């Protein structure tokens, strides 16, 4: 698996961070390498690294240029990133309820039109998928998923919307996502989930981890309201499937 990937690239992200890129596309093998490098750097810390952010296909390494320079850090990271590393994660499985369409998924009809199909088919296809949490980012708990069916892949909006609601379930490009908080987004809104992937005073604060598996199931808008109240009170309304 790892052998099929080209050597990682180091891309400067300003003077205090470097992107260690394993692939240009969404690729679960590359993502495994990202998570494995992340784990390796946590186990054997390099002086100067302040924080790491695993993403689909690259590991963003924040560092302090007062402690280590770009070249020296690259020289230390590349050998670790280039060697085969054991898989980093043990997958958990979540079933996430979604109220599709209407006020909760304002783009559902337009997506159906653009893809020359019906809203029901979009729902069936989206909720029929088996996804992997490839990364978490943008805003707290925003879970980026790989595994979006090819028939649902479409370009993001030309210009992002300035505000989309908390709990938005959306698709963008070849990605699917669970958005926890209200935020700007250039993705297409299919529905909303009452599940909070981030809730400050709940244990755990963050529900999903990179490497977790996710499936969706449709709920009606009344059930959404009930689950939303339960979630607000601190319940984890996602169902964890025991392997």
């Amino acid at each position, binding site marked *: 698996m790892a052998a099929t990937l080209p050597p990682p690239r180091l891309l400067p992200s300003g003077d205090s961070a470097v992107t260690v890129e394993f692939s240009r596309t969404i690729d679960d093998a590359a993502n495994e390498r990202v998570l494995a490098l992340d784990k390796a750097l946590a186990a054997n810390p390099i002086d100067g690294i302040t924080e790491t*952010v695993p*993403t689909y296909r690259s590991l963003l390494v924040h560092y302090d240029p007062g402690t280590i320079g770009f070249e020296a850090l690259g020289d230390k990271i590349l050998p670790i990133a280039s060697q085969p590393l054991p898989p980093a994660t043990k997958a958990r499985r979540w079933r996430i309820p979604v109220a599709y369409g209407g006020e909760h998924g304002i783009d559902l009809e337009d997506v159906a039109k653009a893809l020359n199909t019906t809203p029901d088919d979009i729902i069936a296809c989206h909720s029929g998928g088996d996804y992997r949490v490839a990364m978490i980012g943008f805003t707290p708990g925003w879970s980026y998923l790989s595994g979006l069916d090819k028939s649902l892949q479409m370009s993001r909006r030309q210009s992002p919307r300035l505000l989309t609601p908390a709990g938005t379930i959306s698709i963008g490009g070849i990605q699917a996502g669970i958005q926890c908080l209200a935020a700007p987004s250039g993705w297409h809104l299919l529905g909303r989930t009452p599940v909070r992937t981030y809730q400050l005073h709940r244990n755990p604060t963050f529900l999903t981890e990179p490497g977790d598996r996710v499936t969706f199931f449709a709920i009606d808008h009344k059930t959404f309201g009930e689950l939303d109240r339960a979630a607000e009170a601190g319940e984890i309304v996602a169902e964890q499937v025991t392997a």
Partner: protein
Amino acid sequence: MSRLVVASIGPASSVQDGGRHGAQRYGLTVSGAMDRLSLAAANTLVGNEPFAAAVEIGPFGASFTARDGAVRVAISGAPRNADIAGRPVAIDTSVTLKDGETLTLGFARGGAFSYLAIEGAIKGELVFGSLAVNARAGLGSPYPRPLQAGDEFNVDAASGAPELRIELPKPVSGPIRVLLGPQDDEFDDANKALFLDSEWKISATSDRMGYRLEGPAIKHLHGHNIVSDGTVIGSIQVPGDGAPIALMMDRGTTGGYPKIATVITADVGRLAQTSVGTAFRFREVTMAEAQDEARKFARLIKDLPDRLRSSDTVELNIEALSDANVAGYAVSAVDAGTWQVTAEP
């Protein structure tokens, strides 16, 4: 214990500190002061740690009243008029408000953000080591949202320490410096040149999350969708419409538009202080230069206490000088924005 009451305040003002680090991997935004140097200067003036929590005041005016005792504060950042009951107060100085006195700040004249540091710092519940307000996430303390009139802080009573001013180096002027990348290969040479050679203005739709830039449309080589990856403060994304967005303190930790360049650490605060509609340019620098500047910037903040001076040396009674008609050219010096201390005490 004294209280500092927010008597009036405009939008885009909140409690900020050095930011929330360590949970970007869960999408937890860093936040923190838009202009870290000014935050650090204000804090240093009242004896706080450089990145302690202070009030970040947006471009509009604000006023603060001391209650239940005296409160010692300092203001740094964007130039603006400040007074206590008509008595002018210079920026980059500390000042003690007696019980019941009100410090009034005018609109920013150039720049965007000022920092009001309070001796002993703002207190509250830390989340991931920070009080910084991230209004979108409902995070930050004591008020997890923009400040409103009537908000108040429980603060240490003023120590009575002598008032100080701080001599900051002359601000760097000229283009905002950037490193190209991490996705500059998503743009051809002509469009990279267009980005570097054009004049830009900050759009009125900008906020602590991102500064939208008005100028020519930058075209992508392969379209505007990349697989979302990590962002840093200062990342300059180019979305589909070609109008770049410089990601600021409340940025998302990841993003899916190609990033043509990254503002160097030492210039993020300068970009943050560029007011809406002011024209500016970018300039490409090397990694070596950027890292050297980042180290210098860190050293500048660390060594701020060495720049403290007694405030007595600049206490001028402007009205008396004007009345006596001896102030001459010095009258322009009451403009806090152009105030330059030229002589050592």
